[in-house]
């Protein structure tokens, strides 16, 4: 997928005035947050579970070479083919090759974010294949020719009215506002035909289990299971960071994932795929392929962004992000939106083309509080900001202002004196307009300093407290 992340400010501005989008976002937000909160409250000790999840992923990442080798050997021992893709282009050509050898004409897909990351649909379509998304959300946005706007709810930005219109256009159904169950039934009918006719099924994988070579696939619709049962060929696409050591570890990770993503105790279908179809099985594909994608992940493993590789793509940090909830996923301009996207996208497509993403954050810290694998997203975003500064990607007044502030902050006496003076001299209340910072005051007032500085107020309060003790 081509990135438009460099257009974040323009896209965000447009999103703020898009009425359909704002209506859809308002509708979705509370639902996600409430469902997760209820599921977490029901759990006996979710904090300990998070800590365990963090440790499972940290342990796996620290031994990733060994676990990858074990996983691949186990898949091959059970008749699967393992392909290694250092980058997106390599992954695309592996997939094309598999389809060509199989003489495929139609491909059905389950939802896969790695598929979006490498742009699999465009590549296959260019080669003349018909590609059909089968996750209902993915199907809707495929009809709309749009990228997903949320990593677990790709069509969250679409209202029911918009979906009715799309279905009317593509299925020839009545162009009226219809109820959701009718739409679900219609999609089921249309897609059932596609399932039965497809040659190749492509799915993602939520976890890869090293000890057994098992892929764990978590879905609710059942489309993933159909993709890996009906076509002649099944291909799994997954990043190399998806490994976990054992099936028991996978159980912990699934508990974390579903609660964080949808507030369920378990997804409707949790399927464990181990190797190719056995001789005595009456159905299932003839060929089974596993594509392991690096695409920047091994680099992250070695630098200060390793923690991001713990991410299990639950989408919770999007749901809890005030910026995401204001502008939606498309404004971020690439596959991964929200806090996790603002960290990942610069890692994969480069800092130069994504320089607004690390700054699209208020550092309120909610994402870190709810992340099931405790990724310190705000810290990582701060590190990216620092990197931008070091690499000279920040220029103009912003750069000079930061330098000046940095110089001043290293001289505490001067800093205190100067800020106290400014606090005393500045007018009270809030400013409607600020010189050099119209970006802030365009949409809100800037609170002006109180009569004193924070440090002074703090030490005065500490003194008072001592007196009362």
């Amino acid at each position, binding site marked *: 997928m081509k990135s438009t992340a460099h257009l974040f400010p323009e896209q965000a501005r447009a999103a703020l005035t898009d009425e359909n989008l704002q209506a859809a976002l308002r509708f979705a937000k509370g639902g996600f947050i409430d469902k997760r909160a209820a599921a977490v409250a029901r759990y006996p000790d979710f904090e300990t579970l998070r800590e365990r999840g963090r440790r499972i992923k940290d342990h796996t990442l620290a031994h990733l070479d060994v676990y990858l080798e074990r996983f691949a050997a186990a898949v091959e021992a059970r008749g699967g083919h393992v392909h290694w893709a250092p980058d997106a282009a390599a992954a695309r050509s592996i997939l094309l090759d598999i389809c060509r050898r199989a003489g495929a004409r139609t491909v059905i897909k389950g939802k896969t974010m790695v598929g979006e990351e490498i742009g699999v649909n465009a590549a296959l379509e260019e080669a003349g294949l018909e590609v059909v998304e089968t996750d209902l959300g993915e199907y809707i946005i495929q009809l709309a020719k749009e990228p997903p706007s949320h990593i677990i709810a790709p069509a969250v930005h679409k209202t029911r009215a918009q979906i009715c219109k799309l279905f009317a256009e593509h299925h020839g159904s009545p162009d009226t506002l219809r109820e959701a169950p009718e739409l679900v039934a219609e999609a089921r009918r249309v897609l059932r035909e596609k399932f039965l006719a497809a040659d190749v099924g492509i799915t993602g994988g939520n976890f890869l289990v090293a000890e057994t070579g098992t892929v764990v696939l978590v879905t609710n619709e059942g*489309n993933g299971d159909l993709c890996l049962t009906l076509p002649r060929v099944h291909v799994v696409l997954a990043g190399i960071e998806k490994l976990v050591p054992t099936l028991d570890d996978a159980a912990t990770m699934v508990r974390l994932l579903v609660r964080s993503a949808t507030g369920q105790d378990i997804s409707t279908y949790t399927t*464990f795929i181990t190797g190719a179809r056995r001789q005595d099985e009456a159905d299932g594909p003839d060929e089974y392929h596993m594509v392991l994608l690096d695409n920047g992940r091994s680099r992250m493993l070695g630098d200060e962004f390793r923690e991001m590789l713990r991410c299990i793509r639950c989408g919770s940090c999007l749901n809890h992000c005030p910026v995401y909830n204001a502008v939606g996923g498309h404004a971020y301009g690439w596959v991964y939106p929200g806090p996790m996207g603002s960290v990942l996208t610069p890692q994969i497509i480069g800092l130069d083309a994504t320089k607004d993403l690390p700054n699209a954050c208020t550092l309120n810290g909610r994402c870190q509080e709810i992340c099931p694998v405790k990724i310190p997203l705000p810290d990582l975003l701060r590190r990216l900001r620092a990197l931008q500064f070091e690499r000279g990607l920040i220029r103009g007044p912003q750069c000079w202002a930061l330098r000046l502030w940095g110089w001043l902050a290293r001289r505490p006496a001067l800093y205190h004196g100067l800020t106290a003076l400014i606090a005393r001299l500045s007018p009270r209340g809030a400013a409607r307009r600020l010189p050099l910072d119209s970006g802030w005051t365009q949409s809100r007032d800037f609170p002006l300093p109180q009569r004193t500085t924070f440090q002074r107020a703090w030490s005065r309060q500490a003194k008072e407290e001592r007196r009362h003790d």
Partner: protein
Amino acid sequence: MTDARQAILNAVRQALGRSASVEPAPRDYAAQPPPRPSWREHGPERFTRKLERVAGSCERLVELAAVPAAVLRYLEGLGDDRRLLVAPDPLLQGLEWPAALQRSTHPQDARRYPAAVITAALGIAETGTVVLPSGPHRPPSMQLLPDHLIVVLRTEDVVDYVEDVWQRIAAGTLPRTVTFMTGPSRTADIAQTLHVGAHGPRRLHVLLVG
């Protein structure tokens, strides 16, 4: 292909600061069991409650011989169609089926038949889940394509937790797929409201025997 494999493994090792793979340290976190929900009721009761909470249905039967009549009753509740897929499972094939049913054991018929009856290898009380390993007795298309899925589960096969499943299905004997199914197929992709019957079965009915 082997080059790409080497390239990725080398890059990973380099990132980890070593040139050859070393045996992983023991998984220290695994010394403690993970925090998990607990309950007072019996496994089958918890199973039923959890399944019903996600729009599945459950019927208790005293013995296996009661299965065919229960299946017929279920179909009668739906209408006049008496076509039924019966999984090629000795447990089911050994039962006496009423003549009123038009039975098939062929996976190809899963595309046309409205209902299927299969067995579950295990049930999970933690989540109200039926465990369906693929194999000659349980072709996955039968559990996915028909609108109505009836699953026979014996109470002695209800385990407590997800992890217990892997005590009963050993790593060495894993079939191609093991599906944990919990309720009917569902989606929330239209305006974030929940609807059943997306692509898999629209209804999941469990006959809990014993």
